[in-house]
């Protein structure tokens, strides 16, 4: 049986996990089959991933190290049976991971070569926009998007069709279209994966929007930390231009749309529309008062529409398959699917796309496989610095905009970080406040100074210096910061604090009243000691300790000098006998 193609998953995280070395190894071997690349298929837990395609289909192998790559090389070369091991799509865990997912935005990610327009065309690419140009008026396109029920996937959830109709109705010309790829939420990587894996889908989504709204100039504003995404976008724009799918007089019509990539320079606040436009204009990315809304006066005071990467990536499917194929997945007022970057303490971390209405528990436990540490799960953080922590007791909440908002968190752009009982919720709140405080542009007083004061309070609580009325002070400040800030950054900055106070108040109280950190995280409140019942005197901890504060003879119980201990926890990580306790 001849093997036609060998495909290596070369997304950023695949490469980081060793895919490049595997690719080079395959390249050197005389495979007798075509060697190709694709991007992230979302099964990050099994990277590096290699697929072998032959007459009977594609077989995906995960966890490919140099040894296993050699096994693959031999069987591809000889044309013998492919190995049974590491078949990650067919085994039990792979099935659990994939069965509940519905791929629309991620349909081509990890399937096609993102650097080849022909592969995108072969799977029905650019059919949606060609259909629009040939047989629909711009008004009809907007109606189709409205009927589909698509809402902005960047976090706010505004109805996309309605947003497009604002730009279509604007009087001034030229009109701008922007793709917000400034994915700044720490813990989120959906947009990176889409841009690296299927850049043409984003371009086609933007083209559709341009046709519907009359926009003739477009920007993809991408963060500079995503060099591979930028590289692939630029290749895709070049290829699409060569095929007359971008540029002037597209497909021989009078419809023209020119697209450029703008590299961000590192500012979380630039995810906000008005700040993003300021940045495109080459200024400091400070938010501005609305109105005027971007659709009226955006970039260079001209009408502008901004959507997120995932929003655009959904559009080609809607145009090609019809709005009903999209809105058949619906739950309450939320329609379609949502992509999540599932990370943290779950067995199977990766990129998942699920229909609205699946519960958090189904995503975390069935798809994600539950706790990776075998310790009980405690919470899931959604929405990054603007979102909140949802406790395990609410894991049966369905995933839709309204239900998630009701918990106090937000759907956000799709970061989903799972936490176990060794995560301190006060420390998590402090972590996010530290982030927003640093990223505040400084325009609004309460966002600039209020977040600073909140961070100081949280820091002193984690240091064991919290005082009685700190919690009420935090709540008071939170209210002021959210009410008096101009943009989402400030308005939502208190969310991580408010949700942890709502669901994990007793942890705050333990820090303040008992001077204890129940999760064993906050250094000034914990003490590492050797449990004499478990210690066998193997000396491993003493060897690993960076400050050499552990003493003891071989085969005797060891001792930690508290004066010298810096509480790094390396001894606890090193010990194989569970003999290091945290008090």
């Amino acid at each position, binding site marked *: 049986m001849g093997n036609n193609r060998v495909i290596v998953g070369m997304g950023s*995280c695949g490469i*980081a996990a060793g895919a490049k070395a595997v690719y080079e190894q395959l390249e050197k071997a005389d495979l007798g089959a075509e060697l190709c690349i694709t991007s992230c298929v979302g099964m990050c837990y099994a990277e590096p991933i290699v697929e072998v395609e032959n007459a009977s289909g594609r077989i995906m192998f995960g966890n490919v190290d140099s040894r296993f790559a050699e096994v693959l090389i031999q069987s591809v070369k000889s044309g013998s049976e492919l190995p049974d091991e590491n078949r990650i799509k067919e085994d039990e865990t792979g099935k659990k991971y994939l069965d509940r997912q519905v791929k629309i935005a991620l349909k081509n990610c990890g399937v096609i070569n993102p650097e080849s327009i022909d592969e995108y065309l072969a799977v029905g690419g650019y059919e949606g926009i060609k259909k629009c140009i040939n047989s629909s008026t711009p008004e009809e396109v907007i109606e189709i998007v409205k009927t589909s029920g698509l809402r902005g996937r960047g976090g706010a959830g505004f109805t996309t069709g309605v947003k497009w109709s604002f730009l279509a109705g604007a009087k001034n010309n030229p009109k701008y279209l922007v793709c917000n790829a400034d994915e700044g939420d720490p813990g989120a990587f959906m947009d990176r994966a889409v841009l690296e894996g299927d850049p043409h889908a984003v371009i086609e989504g933007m083209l559709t929007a341009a046709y519907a709204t009359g926009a003739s100039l477009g920007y993809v504003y991408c963060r500079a*930390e995503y060099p591979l995404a930028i590289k692939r976008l630029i290749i895709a724009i070049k290829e699409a231009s060569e095929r007359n799918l971008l540029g002037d007089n597209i497909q021989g019509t009078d419809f023209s749309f020119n697209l450029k990539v703008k590299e961000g320079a590192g500012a979380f606040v630039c995810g906000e529309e008005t700040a993003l436009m300021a940045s495109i204009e080459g*200024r400091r990315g400070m938010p501005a008062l609305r109105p005027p809304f971007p659709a009226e006066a955006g970039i260079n005071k001209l009408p502008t529409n901004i959507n997120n990467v995932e929003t655009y990536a959904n559009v080609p499917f809607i145009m090609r398959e019809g709005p009903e194929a999209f809105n058949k997945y619906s739950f309450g007022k939320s329609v379609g699917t949502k992509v999540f970057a599932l990370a943290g303490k779950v067995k199977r971390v990766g990129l998942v796309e699920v229909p609205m209405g699946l519960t958090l528990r189904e995503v975390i436990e069935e798809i994600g496989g539950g706790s990776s540490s075998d310790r009980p799960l405690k919470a899931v953080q959604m929405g990054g610095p603007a979102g909140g922590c949802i406790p395990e007791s609410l894991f049966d909440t369905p995933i839709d905009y309204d239900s998630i908002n009701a918990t106090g968190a937000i759907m956000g752009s799709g970061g989903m970080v799972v936490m176990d009982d060794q995560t301190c919720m006060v420390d998590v709140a402090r972590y996010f406040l530290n982030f927003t405080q640093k990223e505040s542009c400084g325009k609004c007083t309460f966002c600039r100074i209020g977040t600073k004061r909140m961070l100081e309070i949280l820091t002193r609580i984690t240091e064991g210096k919290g005082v009685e009325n700190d919690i009420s002070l935090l709540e008071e400040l939170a209210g002021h910061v959210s009410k008096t800030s101009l943009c989402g950054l400030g308005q939502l900055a208190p969310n991580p604090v408010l949700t942890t106070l709502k669901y994990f108040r007793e942890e705050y109280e333990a820090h303040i009243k008992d001077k204890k950190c129940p999760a064993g995280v906050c250094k000034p409140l914990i003490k590492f000691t050797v449990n004499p019942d478990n210690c066998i005197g193997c000396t491993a901890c003493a060897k690993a300790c960076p400050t050499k504060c552990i003493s003891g003879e071989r085969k005797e119980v060891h001792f930690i000098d508290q004066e010298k201990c810096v509480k790094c926890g*390396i001894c606890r990580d090193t010990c194989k006998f569970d003999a290091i306790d945290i008090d």
Partner: protein
Amino acid sequence: MSCADCSNAAKEAREVVAAVGSEPEKVIPLLQEIQKRHGYLSQELIETVAEEINLPVSRLYGVATFYSQFRFHPIGKHLIKVCKGTACHVAGAEKVYSIISEDLGVVEGETTEDGLFTLESVACLGCCSLAPVVMIDDNIYGKLSPAKMGKILKEYADGK
């Protein structure tokens, strides 16, 4: 500053502007080009580029100081970026950071005396599945433990 330096900077400023463009909306790409060439923004080049494109120097500094990508000091031979995203934070990014910081004797933003390493932290590298993650130059290292981190640093110090 000698005159030879003046003319060198002016020549380079012209090159930078020719490559990127001179419109006010090009301020960020201009600064990025300078940093790409030198690893940081020198006062001299910011001033000469500002002159070249007829914008006040303050405008360029205003933009440069707003965005975290830009730095104003030269960097070492290897640039270490410790990811402090949420997934990395809960997976122990702080421990990894401490090991590097103690090993090299520098804190965030500093360069080692031998000029070999500069230590920085970033909000998220988007490789959450491999947390905790560190990027050295263009290479990403994932699933790090303090011990593994120490070994990697040693490899670089030994001239990888």
